[in-house]
């Protein structure tokens, strides 16, 4: 269920079009609205692609999040590191 809530937070953040109160990527909102724990909150706030991947964020959703919030070089480096680790 944590992976579902984590992904819902990402989805809501990316698709906030027209909503009066779009969810922000900040600890209070993520804890209150989505019940996320420290590890998930830290990964989201820091754009930690490798941890988000390990936490089960769907790759297509992760890609959308990373493209929007993580510098391209850092994003590719994180995935390359994951590949090296197997």
């Amino acid at each position, binding site marked *: 269920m944590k992976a579902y809530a984590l*992904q819902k937070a990402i989805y809501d953040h*990316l698709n906030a079009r027209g909503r009066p109160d779009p969810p922000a990527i900040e600890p209070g909102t993520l804890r209150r609205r989505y019940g996320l724990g420290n590890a998930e909150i830290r990964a989201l706030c820091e754009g930690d692609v490798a941890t988000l991947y390990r936490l089960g*964020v*769907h790759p*297509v959703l992760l890609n*959308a999040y990373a493209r929007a919030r993580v510098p391209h070089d850092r994003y590719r480096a994180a*995935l390359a590191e994951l590949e090296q680790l197997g």
Partner: protein
Amino acid sequence: MAELVAAVAASHAPLITGSPESAEPAQKDRVYAGMAALRAELEEARPDALIVCSNEHFANFFLDNFPPYCIGVGDRHLGPAEDWLRIERGPLLGHPELGRWLVERLLADDFDPAFSADLCLDHGVMTVLHFLNPGWRVPVVPIVQNCGVAPMPTLGRCYRLGAGLRRAVDAWPVPQRVALIGTGGLSHWVGMPGMGRINADFDRWFLDRLSTGRADDVLSLTDAKLEEAGNGAHEIRSWLTVAGAVGGKPARVLVYEPVSAWVTGMGVVTYSDHLRRE
């Protein structure tokens, strides 16, 4: 009666507009030339409406409700969802009459499309239309298929959906010229280890099957086999939908380039020669 006047397919990749300069210049030029050739074809075909078959990237649907395919029936479509594509955010004109007709006819034809009057279009549709529909002049009926979140519709089902779309267009009692555009993959890895890798052997095999009228060979691939060309290769479903709409006739391949910088095998094909002869 309506008439299908063009049928084409092209890879989509957000970086084709978001970071075109990241590609090797000769590759970029060849892909752009392929898109320009498609645009010239479409201008010659003078469509009154575009049906654009792409795939869902979580710009509309989430895991609480993820339809196999959804037809946009709005009179406007917002897009692009991403603000970094270097494409001005529209609204694009929709074509609600055609969209609703497609939904009704497909339902009558034993398909089960979802529909939405509020689809948000992302790079899957917008990057290709940036090249093929400048100024968003021609109204668009978008179709987003599930090409990414398992379980997905089978390749055969997507091919047959194309045949169903063709029957629906042919039966539309309105004298309009309709073009069908498929966008998606080819091989690529998205949001996972391997991103930037391209399986050019798979891409060339796939394009060979399309260009020799053997799309049937592709339909039996399992999802596991398909993933040897990356999780993004599931997007060939949109290409197969276009192939189904022309009865599996041979495609003419205009370009193929494995563009690692855009993390995608970039292909461009057309079937419009057949439609001109019909």
